[in-house]
């Protein structure tokens, strides 16, 4: 099936004096997997609940599959939803839970049994049908919640941080499962999470929210490679943020200068206006430079520079993380950088030792100075 397209215009929600969602507009394409990524309090769950019809918007419109759903009650929207704590009915068995939406739609018994069996197969919980939710593990409960939300073949599936209660190994496994499920079923998915690795792994596009505002919507790759603002740079992945200046001496190149040095940058790496394409605004002035830790190579003080700008620095701390080691380096002018080295890094780079940091400045991104 092809999922529904969802159009959201000017969606706003205010509680007393607190604005949870501010004038949000977005087009969710039919069949796409869209993640809404944000920290707690960013308003992402409120947006989801407004799409589901559980919360009444203060302003704005929600159009689902061509129908204006803004005033429709939740049971009339045909939208499936998986809650953060699964919300499985504890007094019903797995089978009864999954059958519930079909019963509400008065599906004839034979068809109901068939669809329930098909959905149980789809999410992989054969053999658990007669158990109660309390007898299931977290991962199993999550699949039941998915099954229940999919059994009536909705065109839109909403997921509210469904993996947050699972432990890491299970979470990674479920990311793959969800992606596969999405491909097989074809439903449009809106997935709310605060975990950027989930958003990056599964989505066709990611919408980043902050304090009720939609900051940017883009593919995961572009969001990571070319973040549109300081906040996005810091929230999606790790980032070094350095204040500096941008000067357009040449229509084809921007000159970036900061405490660490100066270099030329291709215009498509300049995101001075988040969300409206790269390099549109070409004014000179202060800017923030984003350099990812993996673009900062660190080597012992006597090693030659590997790329771009080489800076002498002192190793402040080394944090081993299994597949990589994160170094905190103090460079000139008091600037502190994070650098990432594969594996255990270099044994000579103990805290306190001198080192050389090589910045691949060609991969840096320039964003608005001090913006959110």
């Amino acid at each position: 099936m092809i999922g529904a397209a969802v159009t959201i215009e000017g969606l706003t929600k205010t509680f007393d004096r607190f604005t949870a969602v501010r004038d949000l507009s977005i087009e969710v394409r039919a069949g796409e997997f869209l993640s809404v990524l944000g920290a707690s309090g960013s308003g992402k769950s409120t947006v989801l609940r407004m799409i589901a019809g559980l919360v009444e918007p203060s302003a704005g419109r929600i159009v689902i599959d061509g129908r204006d759903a803004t005033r429709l009650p939740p049971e009339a929207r045909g939208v499936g939803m998986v809650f953060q704590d699964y919300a499985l009915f504890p007094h019903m068995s797995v089978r009864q839970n999954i059958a519930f939406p079909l019963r509400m739609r008065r599906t004839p018994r034979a068809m109901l049994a068939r669809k329930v069996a098909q959905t149980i197969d789809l999410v992989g919980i054969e053999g658990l049908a007669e158990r109660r939710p309390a007898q299931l593990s977290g991962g199993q409960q999550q699949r039941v919640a998915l099954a229940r939300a999919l059994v009536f073949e909705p065109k839109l599936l909403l997921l509210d941080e469904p993996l947050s209660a699972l432990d890491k190994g299970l979470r990674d496994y479920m990311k793959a499962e969800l992606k596969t499920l999405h491909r097989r079923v074809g439903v449009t998915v809106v997935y709310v999470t605060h975990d950027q690795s989930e958003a990056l792994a599964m989505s066709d596009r990611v919408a980043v929210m902050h304090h009720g505002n939609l900051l940017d919507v883009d593919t995961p790759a572009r969001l990571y490679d070319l973040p549109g603002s300081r906040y996005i740079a810091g929230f999606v992945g790790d980032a070094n943020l350095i204040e500096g200046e941008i000067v357009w001496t040449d229509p084809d190149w921007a000159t970036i200068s900061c405490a660490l040095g100066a270099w030329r940058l291709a215009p498509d790496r300049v995101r001075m206006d988040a969300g409206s394409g790269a390099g549109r605004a070409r004014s000179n002035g202060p800017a923030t430079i984003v350099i990812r830790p993996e673009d900062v190579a660190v080597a012992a003080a006597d090693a030659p520079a590997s790329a771009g700008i080489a800076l002498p620095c002192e190793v402040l701390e080394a944090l081993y993380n299994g597949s990589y080691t994160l170094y905190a380096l103090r460079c000139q002018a008091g600037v502190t950088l994070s650098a990432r080295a594969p594996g255990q890094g270099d044994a000579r780079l103990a805290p306190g030792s001198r080192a050389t940091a090589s910045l691949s400045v060609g991969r840096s991104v320039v964003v608005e100075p001090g913006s959110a």
Partner: protein
Amino acid sequence: MTRATRPRGSVPWTWLWLLPGLAFMGALFVLPICRMAWDSVSDPVPGLGNYAAILSERLYLRVFWNSIWSATGATLASVLIGYALAYAICRASGRRRRLILGLVMFSYVVGTVPRAFSWLVVLGDRGLANLLLLRLGITRSRVPLIYNEFGVLVGMIHVMLPFVTLILLGSMLRVGAHLVPAARTLGATSRRAFWEVFVPLTRPGVLAAMMIVFVYSLGFYIVPAVLGGAGQTTIVMEIQELALNLGDWGLAAALSTAVVLVSILGAAMYVRTTGLADVHGHE
């Protein structure tokens, strides 16, 4: 994060659930009490005459005194015993705790009526107490233990004890279980830990319990009616007398309103000190 969990369009719905209850309470509780208060100042003639009568006539003052006297005595005694009992339950574990709690609950669920009547055969002239006193040679003749203050007091304590114990137990359980052991590690003997850490922490609970129980005991009817004599007429018995037998409605309403005001005052103080936290359960 603010979670708006309210299903859409539920504002009118919420009040729909509350409509039957509000109508019921309004018609059968709020309005009647207001009307009774009104009657107390308007029947038989408008004015505070009924209240003046209550405060001046010896009969009513005596009745007030009886009620307050027995209520105070019963409250103090049952809080004292109840505290010890609740503490025992608190400290005990497993079977012993279940046993004591079981005894308390047994006494509670049996009801006030059976309990009040049972004292007739324990304290009565031909009851257990007199039997023991005579057999053991402690007295030479039957001692009147009922139809007097003593009987009423014992009956009231018996009825109130489980109730008080459960309230105090609740308050004790709210004292962190680790506070007394912490005091012990800081050098306090178990006696000092008890008096200087545990008891002060239960003080608000005890005060609240005393208020509730005092108010509760003002409204006792069965125990004084069954176990008391002519001199043990309580407020509520007097109200019944006035209303049903003497037909003096205004006076009955006035006495009744006075009792209601005192009761609500006591309950308000209880809610002020403990709040409604123990009501809300598992939020």
